[in-house]
């Protein structure tokens, strides 16, 4: 299937914007570790992963732009902060290394489940892109799982910073797999093969299992916040100012 009726197309456009914005904003936050990560090897790894995320965002923006007759650069750099649709989890700065690991652990596993579902999409361009991204994301999952274990096995402050960050990030991480307004329509058309709530339940089970296997405390029951993709912070407004700076400096420039 490559042609879409207006209803499913609008629902897909909304979903694609969430996928792109999640990857885009997280990629920018984590790219701030370039040069100051805890060790040189990690500097290279985090920079490479962030570049992957921003590359994935670019691909989703391009697909969205082709559906809505828009422009990928405008979508990335030409919107006001309140028009971004990333999950609230991505509203916060990189903070310390424990928070960066905690956020990426929760996000990467949610993204993996979301991409697995989308790789079965009835809409071929989405299925193809998701299948390709999954191969790359395998490296991200391995990387963050190693860090989770490493911080979990550490003593004292390191371990507690991780536990605190996981608990702080958990409620807003639910927004990654919260249903969009077009969820029912997307499922009906097979564009999203399963409802987001099903994916979120699957993700929660996987996360709790990994935490238990690493001797970390379970996280409390959590629902998806209603404003999980519209809530904005001053921190994000600051980041938005940073990542749009070059584009704003010469709006007529061609790249």
């Amino acid at each position, binding site marked *: 299937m490559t042609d879409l009726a207006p209803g499913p197309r609008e629902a897909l456009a909304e979903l694609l914007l969430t996928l792109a914005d999640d990857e885009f904003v997280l990629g920018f936050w984590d790219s701030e570790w370039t040069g100051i990560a805890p060790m040189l090897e990690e500097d290279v790894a985090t920079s490479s992963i962030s570049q992957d995320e921003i590359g994935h965002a670019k691909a989703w923006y391009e697909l969205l732009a082709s559906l809505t007759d828009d422009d990928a650069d405008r979508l990335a750099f030409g919107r006001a902060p309140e028009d971004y649709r990333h999950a609230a989890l991505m509203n916060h700065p990189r903070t310390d290394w424990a928070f960066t690991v905690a956020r990426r652990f929760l996000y990467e596993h949610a993204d993996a489940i979301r991409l697995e579902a989308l790789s079965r999409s009835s809409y*071929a361009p989405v299925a*193809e892109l998701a299948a390709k991204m999954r191969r790359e994301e*395998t490296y991200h999952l391995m990387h963050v799982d190693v860090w989770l274990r490493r911080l979990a096995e550490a003593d004292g402050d390191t371990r507690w910073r991780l536990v605190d960050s996981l608990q702080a990030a958990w409620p807003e991480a639910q927004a990654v797999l919260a249903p969009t307004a077009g969820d029912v329509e997307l499922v009906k058309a097979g564009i999203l093969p399963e409802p987001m709530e099903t994916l979120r339940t699957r993700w929660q089970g996987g996360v709790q299992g990994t935490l238990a296997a690493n001797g970390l405390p379970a996280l409390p029951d959590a629902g998806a916040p209603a404003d999980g993709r519209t809530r904005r912070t001053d921190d994000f407004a600051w980041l938005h100012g940073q990542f749009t700076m070059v584009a704003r400096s010469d709006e007529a420039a061609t790249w």
Partner: protein
Amino acid sequence: MVARAAVRDPRELAVRAALDEIPDPEIPAISVVELGVIGEVAFEPRREGGELLSVELLPTFVGCPAIDVMRQQIGERLTALGVADEVQVRLTFAPPWTSDRISAEGREKLRGSGFAPPVLIGPSFDGHELQLYLAQATCPYCGSERTTLDNPFGPTLCRAIYHCDACNQPFEQFKAV
């Protein structure tokens, strides 16, 4: 490498030969053909008359910053070849590029320029398999298998960093993906 049909349009062979002269922008030792990023090559009639040469380009990584450079170089080279009235280079993820698409010649040239070729992975690819692949790298300098992974992430998206415990050289491996 994908299986090739026995009989081909001679123009297609000319196109592939021209593409085989375009180096990968990040690892110039191998061509875009040896890298396996070239998919279908087709000549299609245009509605307004004449023919369109359509070439599929399969990105190695979704976010590979070299893709636009490759696309431009391919377009310019094929336009100069003058075998069709118009050239279109189309990005596609179907089929996805995987590191198994690097040709035997490409693997040998990688080795010759100090890059370990990627481990052959087959169609499936999951986290458990990745751990096994990452543990395997043959030193491109001395051929030893006594190597240690330093970092699964390297200077570009497609490269990992290793150390050879036999000849004490650091080296890079093209990532299995």
